[in-house]
């Protein structure tokens, strides 16, 4: 494995370039970068997130509408109402350490939402099931009484 080596500014010693980069720019947090994926890889990574955090940890999933344009550009877009901005649904998932994200258009979202629901149902099974008989039970149907 080839690792880039450079000189550390503080100590004058050789060190891997990745740590050098973070020393150069302390705001560049290499561990907390967000990964933008397509819908299917996003769902695969989401599955892994849930599996990794079974014994401990939380998984956050955020959904938000966005035009994905910068603030300045957004203002110019608002000033010209002739062009309607294209909205996308932004979905982010994180376990506190790793973050993944994905954008959906109006066409993608229906297919995504079915797959997404499948992932959720498969992994979020630690919730308590109702012990009393209820009309619609997710598990075995109670025999007619």
């Amino acid at each position, binding site marked *: 494995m080839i690792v880039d080596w450079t000189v550390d500014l503080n100590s004058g010693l050789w060190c891997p370039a990745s740590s050098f980069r973070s020393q150069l720019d302390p705001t560049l947090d290499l561990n907390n970068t967000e990964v933008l994926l397509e819908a299917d890889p996003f769902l695969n990574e989401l599955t892994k997130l*849930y599996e990794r955090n079974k014994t401990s940890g939380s*998984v*956050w999933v955020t959904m938000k509408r966005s035009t994905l344009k910068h603030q300045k550009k957004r203002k110019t877009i608002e000033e010209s109402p002739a062009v309607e901005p294209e909205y996308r*649904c932004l979905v982010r998932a994180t376990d506190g350490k790793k973050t993944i994200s994905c954008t959906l258009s109006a066409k993608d979202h229906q297919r995504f939402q079915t797959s997404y629901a499948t992932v*959720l149902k498969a992994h979020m099974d*630690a919730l*308590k099931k109702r012990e009393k008989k209820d009309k619609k039970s997710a598990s075995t149907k109670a025999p007619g009484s």
Partner: protein
Amino acid sequence: MVYVDSWDTFVERSISLFRADPVATRYVMKYRHCDGKLVLKVTDNRECLKFKTDQAQDMRKMEKLNNLFFTMMARGPDAVVPEELPKEQAAPPPSKKGRGRRQ
């Protein structure tokens, strides 16, 4: 924290919050498998609504809410959530009594 007790109230208020400001409103879901807890949050950075649960029955309700939000966020705040298509289309009308008239 602004926890709402009733699911229906939570849904109603979140939808009106979203419709009032679609770009600023976000829907967050936090799941802890080890504790078996699920917390939903809807906020527009001014007002915050939360719903927590540990019941499996709320999963289905949450799925419906997910679908609602997906549709509204992708298509627009006025979009109507289409009925679930796959199941309905898969089941043909049960009118096959007797032999069909195949010519």
